[in-house]
């Protein structure tokens, strides 16, 4: 990758501007040559940015990360609901028990309810991370748009250096993306 500096681009621009403003007429070829150099520098920069696969950040990495985090919120919410369902069922069962039993069970189930508030806190923290990722996505988008729309022809395929084993490790799957235990059982049965 080419090394660029802001000074490098500014020097070319200053040189062109100097020649245009100069009291001594400059040959048009000189100015055209400087501008061509500037155009090439910008073009090389565009190519190098495409080579870094920056578009992957917005097209793939951030959407995947936010989906995973949404799934964490959903999973912990479901787990909390199940735990609380059980607590309420236990409380209903002991409702007509003697006072000591009822009091003891309610005391313990209350602790479980209190502990379930972790889901609210973690959910809020994860939501903050999701918002940060969306800010990064917008920033990357703005940077890429400085060089015009990214065409499919500009996008370069990443070389996947993972081992075969690593390529198989993509779990846990999102809802609807994996197969159910029933489907797995049926699939395995086909081998028998």
């Amino acid at each position, binding site marked *: 990758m080419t090394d660029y500096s802001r000074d490098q681009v500014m020097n070319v621009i200053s040189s062109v501007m100097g020649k245009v403003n100069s009291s001594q007429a400059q040959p048009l070829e000189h100015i055209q040559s400087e501008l061509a150099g500037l155009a090439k520098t910008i073009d090389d920069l565009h190519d190098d940015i495409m080579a870094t696969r920056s578009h992957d950040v917005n097209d793939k990495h951030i959407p995947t990360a936010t989906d995973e985090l949404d799934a964490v919120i959903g999973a912990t919410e479901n787990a909390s609901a199940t735990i609380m369902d059980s607590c309420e069922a236990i409380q209903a069962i002991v409702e007509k028990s003697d006072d000591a039993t009822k009091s003891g069970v309610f005391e313990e189930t209350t602790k479980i309810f209190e502990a379930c508030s972790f889901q*609210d806190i973690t959910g809020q923290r994860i939501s903050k991370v999701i918002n940060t990722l969306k800010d990064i996505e917008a920033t990357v988008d703005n940077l890429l748009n400085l060089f015009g729309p990214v065409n499919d022809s500009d996008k370069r395929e990443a070389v996947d250096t993972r081992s075969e084993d690593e390529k198989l490790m993509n779990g846990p799957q999102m809802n609807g993306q994996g197969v159910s235990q029933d489907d797995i059982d049926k699939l395995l049965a086909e081998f028998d």
Partner: protein
Amino acid sequence: MNTGMKVLIVDDYATMLRIIRNLLNQIGFKDVDEAADGTQALEKFKSANYGLVISDWNMEPMSGYELLKEIRGGAHNKDVPFIMITAESKTENVIKAKQAGVSNYIVKPFNAETLKGKIESVLQE
């Protein structure tokens, strides 16, 4: 403590609403209404006579802080005890809430003992 009053609890997390409702039930409050944000809460508040409001802060589109200011600035039941239960634990938040007229302030995560103590405190005032 009079637990016969109507209580409004406000939080955008269904889990938290359920936790607070259960804890209130155990304290003795059986008449508990729920709202998922400040806007929904304000509608319910205007159409009933609540003896206590317990609200989260961070909600869209109307926060608990905005809800508090709406209630305190309104004509209906404006002096109702209002407890903020929130993860916002910065001093400036507590000061803002106090200036807006909050009756008490609980930081998440909290336990039943804290909730009961704060409710007793605001209902005695």
